[in-house]
């Protein structure tokens, strides 16, 4: 069944939970991975993903299908992730400033993995990217979203999304070479 049909089913109130569960199964991994690429920690990604899907449940009745469900879903994920990062930055700023980006954990020893220097460098480089650039880059590079869709998700223009992507590539390349 298509997303559109599942949404109609949900909005009509018949098998609401079944329709929602189907939508969840279709999109949850992609949403989770996108969030995790932004925050790195599993626990944080899990919290944000839960908040995203609860919002979907609460707002889906009012979704007019003017965009695709995927665009709408990623827009929610984008907003929730940015809110989470901003909140975490505020909280972390009250303690220490031991990391380059307080919203992201130190890469070394992350998730019990022994990481290569290049990996650590990359994570530091990613951490230094502005959140919007980071989000745009991940959607384009890993999920191959077109720029129109990325622009709609992040509330920017197609040109703005392209610029964000290329700036992210440039910064990461420079940071990998210099750090």
């Amino acid at each position, binding site marked *: 069944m298509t997303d559109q049909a599942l949404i109609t089913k949900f909005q009509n109130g018949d098998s609401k939970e079944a329709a929602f569960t189907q939508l969840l199964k279709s999109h949850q991994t992609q949403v989770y*991975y996108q969030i995790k690429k932004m925050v790195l920690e599993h626990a944080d990604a899990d919290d944000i993903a839960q908040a995203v899907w609860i919002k979907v449940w609460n707002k889906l009745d009012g979704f007019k299908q003017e965009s695709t469900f995927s665009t709408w879903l990623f827009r929610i994920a984008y907003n929730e992730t940015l809110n989470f990062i901003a909140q975490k930055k505020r909280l972390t700023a009250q303690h220490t400033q031991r990391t380059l980006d307080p919203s992201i954990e130190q890469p070394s020893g992350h998730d019990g993995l022994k990481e290569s220097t290049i990996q650590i460098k*990359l994570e530091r480089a990613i951490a230094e990217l502005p959140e919007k650039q980071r989000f745009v880059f991940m959607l384009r590079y890993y999920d191959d979203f077109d720029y129109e869709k990325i622009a709609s998700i992040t509330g920017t223009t197609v040109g703005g999304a392209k610029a964000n992507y290329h700036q992210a590539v440039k910064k990461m390349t420079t940071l*990998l070479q210099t750090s």
Partner: protein
Amino acid sequence: MENESISKELVEALKSFETKTKQVPAGYFDQFELDLMHKIKAQEQAPKRAPIVAVFLDHKQYLVAASLIFAIATGVLFFNKAEKDTAAVVKVEMIEIETLPNELIEAYVNNNELIAEVEWNTAIETEAASLSNNN
């Protein structure tokens, strides 16, 4: 292609970054669905906020504006009414005094003098009685 501009070193790093971000606890996504539906059901069963309160909370600016308008309107009405009432009383009294015949005014004064005299005599008598009792 735009990805051709990405260095080989960066491509390799991004590949291993992706592998790492895809590592999740075993059975995570199935558990996620169960936890989420549990939370949603709990939310659905929780008592909902009163709609009237919700409306006011969602439109605080309207509530503030309405309160201000109400306060101003009440003030204006109150002062207008007070002025009108005072004017009416003064007018009525003036008309009555001017239009009353002298006989009526004299009778009113005489009657009131009588009442005052009676009250005064009663007070004297009461006092005298209490004095004689004491003696």
